[in-house]
């Protein structure tokens, strides 16, 4: 398999929102990374809609219809609708087929009538359960994912994504304990192995249809760290450790691209700026217009180099300003408009830098994702590009270095907890073996008992 050992972007300043070295084209006249930013909306099916296929179809239809109406009502030139599947949709591939078809029909109708550029992203759920035999590979669950992917591709999805959960048992264990070795093993090694298993299949499915392999994001691991880390005054996960986890997440999620995913890489993926720097594929991001879903500490910064701008997720219900598909598409649509104005007027670099500086020193997690630092982490990854373990470790170490430099320059201030956990993590990372197999052996020995859900067989180990 192709591995990235060189940077596609030679310099960080070349990166900017709305432009990617390798733009992607889809049906319905849609391009990504081709000079304009596309807003995205995503709405979680309401509680109860999982009760029957008919309800779920109605739910998906209403979400698509509302989004389209608002898009033309406010004059958006383009937008993307993503539907993240609930388990019932993936467990029943005929649900996936029909919900995709109904959304594709609506989007196509608006494309025909208004000429609006549209895109339909479908994201089946990773319904595998590691501790249940036969585990991640070849189980019924696993087969249903593949069937659902194909059902989406065959019924009008513009692209396919997934958030694979490989390695989550380990990373969860490590995140709760600040155990950087477990996190590295979970994200960098196990996550990468599982992605390769999953993504080769997805890419093959897409080849059969007019459907692109989108991307995978480390939602279940690095985002879990960010979510639990919370705000400045929370006392759960260290924000410096979360920053290192994000670096590893980039090394992991890069695997989708190496398997053939072309982007826009899936949002949730706060690691995507790093992957864009390495690979040149367009990316989706979420931030200040995803406050409906979660609080981050980098809502503006992550606009810096994105190609799709998402709201992450929201309840399907009514606001004073309309239903949530309407309201949140307007929110992301207006931010994308601002970025597009900057692109059109040649001011994109100023706006990118303003976005970036707004959050660069708000939190260490933000700092490492500023596009210049993201590029540095990318360089650390490609240096060890052929070894998923070493490159994940290098990403984390580089992230730590970036934080320490900012601290030394009196730009970044850390609490003692953040300081101590970073020092501790860096020391451990630097002392780790340089041989992947040795690292894996040690980890299997350490964690097999401590993390009962973990089973090396799930990763061919």
């Amino acid at each position: 398999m192709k591995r990235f050992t060189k940077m596609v972007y030679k310099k960080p300043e070349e990166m900017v929102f709305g432009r990617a070295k390798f733009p992607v084209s889809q049906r319905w006249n849609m391009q990504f990374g081709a000079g304009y930013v596309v807003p995205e909306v995503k709405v979680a099916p309401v509680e109860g809609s999982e009760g029957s296929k008919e309800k779920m179809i109605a739910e998906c239809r209403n979400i698509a219809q509302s989004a389209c109406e608002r898009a033309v009502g406010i004059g958006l030139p383009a937008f993307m609708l993503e539907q993240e599947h609930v388990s019932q949709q993936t467990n029943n591939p005929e649900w996936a087929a029909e919900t995709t078809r109904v959304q594709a029909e609506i989007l196509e109708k608006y494309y025909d009538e208004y000429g609006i550029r549209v895109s339909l992203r479908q994201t089946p759920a990773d319904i595998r359960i590691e501790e249940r035999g036969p585990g991640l590979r070849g189980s019924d669950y696993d087969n249903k994912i593949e069937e659902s992917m194909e059902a989406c591709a065959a019924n009008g999805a513009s692209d396919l994504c997934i958030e694979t959960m490989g390695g989550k048992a380990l990373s969860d264990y490590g995140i709760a304990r600040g155990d950087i070795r477990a996190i590295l093993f979970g994200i960098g090694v196990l996550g990468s192995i599982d992605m390769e298993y999953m993504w080769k299949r997805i890419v093959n499915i897409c080849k059969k249809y007019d459907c692109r392999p989108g991307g995978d994001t480390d939602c279940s691991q690095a985002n879990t760290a960010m979510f639990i880390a919370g705000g400045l005054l929370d006392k759960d996960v260290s924000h410096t450790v979360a920053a290192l986890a994000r670096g590893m997440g980039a090394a992991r999620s890069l695997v989708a691209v190496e398997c053939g995913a072309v982007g826009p890489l899936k949002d949730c993926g706060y690691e995507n700026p790093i992957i864009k720097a390495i690979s040149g594929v367009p990316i989706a991001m979420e931030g200040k217009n995803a406050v409906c879903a979660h609080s981050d500490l980098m809502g503006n910064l992550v606009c810096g180099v994105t190609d799709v701008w998402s709201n992450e997720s929201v309840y399907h219900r009514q606001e004073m300003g309309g239903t949530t598909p309407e309201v949140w598409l307007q929110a992301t649509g207006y931010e994308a408009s601002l970025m597009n104005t900057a692109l059109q007027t040649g001011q994109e670099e100023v706006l990118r830098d303003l976005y970036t500086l707004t959050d660069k020193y708000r939190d260490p997690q933000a700092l490492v994702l500023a596009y210049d630092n993201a590029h540095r982490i990318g360089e650390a990854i490609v240096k060890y590009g052929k070894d998923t373990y070493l490159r994940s470790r290098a990403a984390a170490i580089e992230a730590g270095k970036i934080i320490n430099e900012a601290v030394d320059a009196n730009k970044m201030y850390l609490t003692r907890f953040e300081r101590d956990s970073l020092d501790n993590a860096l020391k451990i990372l630097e002392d780790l073996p340089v041989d992947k197999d040795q690292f894996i052996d040690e980890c299997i020995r350490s964690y097999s008992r401590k993390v009962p859900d973990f089973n090396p067989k799930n990763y061919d180990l």
Partner: protein
Amino acid sequence: MNYIEELESKLDQDFIAVRYNVELEGPAITPENDPDVQTILPKEEPYRSIARAVLRGDTEEAVSKVKEGLKSGETPMDVINNGLMKGMDAVNELYTKGFYFLPDLMLSGDSMMEGLKESEKALGHKSETKGTVVSFVAEGDPHDIGKNLVVMFLRANGYDAIDLGRDVPNEEVIKAVKEYKPIFMTGTALMTTTMTAFPKVVEELEKNGLEVPAIGCGGGSVRKDFVESFPMSVYGVEAYHAPKLADSILKDKKTWKDIRKEYSQIVGEFVPEYD
């Protein structure tokens, strides 16, 4: 050229904002030349002139043509049904098609109402309408433009809308329902803290053994999930839906439960839905 003008000169607007309303506009029409309007407008005078005056929203002309007609021996009911109401039918047709806009409809409605008053003067009593509707603004709420639009849309479609005004105590609503026996009622509210009047009204109706579909809507904070969390009520999305809902009650005998389920079909267009 200053800075903003320089930036502006570089813009390709197609990537920023598209005025779909302009892009998609069909050819201009003259109202009276629309084929459907031609079918609706009566051929004989004075009805044709009356209907055309209504169509144009020309109140003076409408009243004067009504007076002429009455003087020349037409019955008031014929003036109303064959003249005024035909004019409104044509107006509604054009509004539905998107050629007429709210102001056209309001002005035509004003003309129709003035012509109606003239006719009723001659008649000596109120004319028969398709049915009666009671409209109010919730207690504590001073915002009434939504209710005013609903009332006008209903009247423009031949319903008798009893306008109770704004900030209406719940008891007055009950009293009006008892008095007018409406086919349904409409309540409007702008605020979360005033829409709470709706369930109280419904409760009171239930206590009095009354059942009448209650269309609750509002320009502001009223939500479908709230309105449809108690019996009798239906969430109304747009003011101009009111007469279509009325028709469905009158002609198709729809209950409030039916309307909740079939709202989108009844009004004949997409309405954003969620459960």
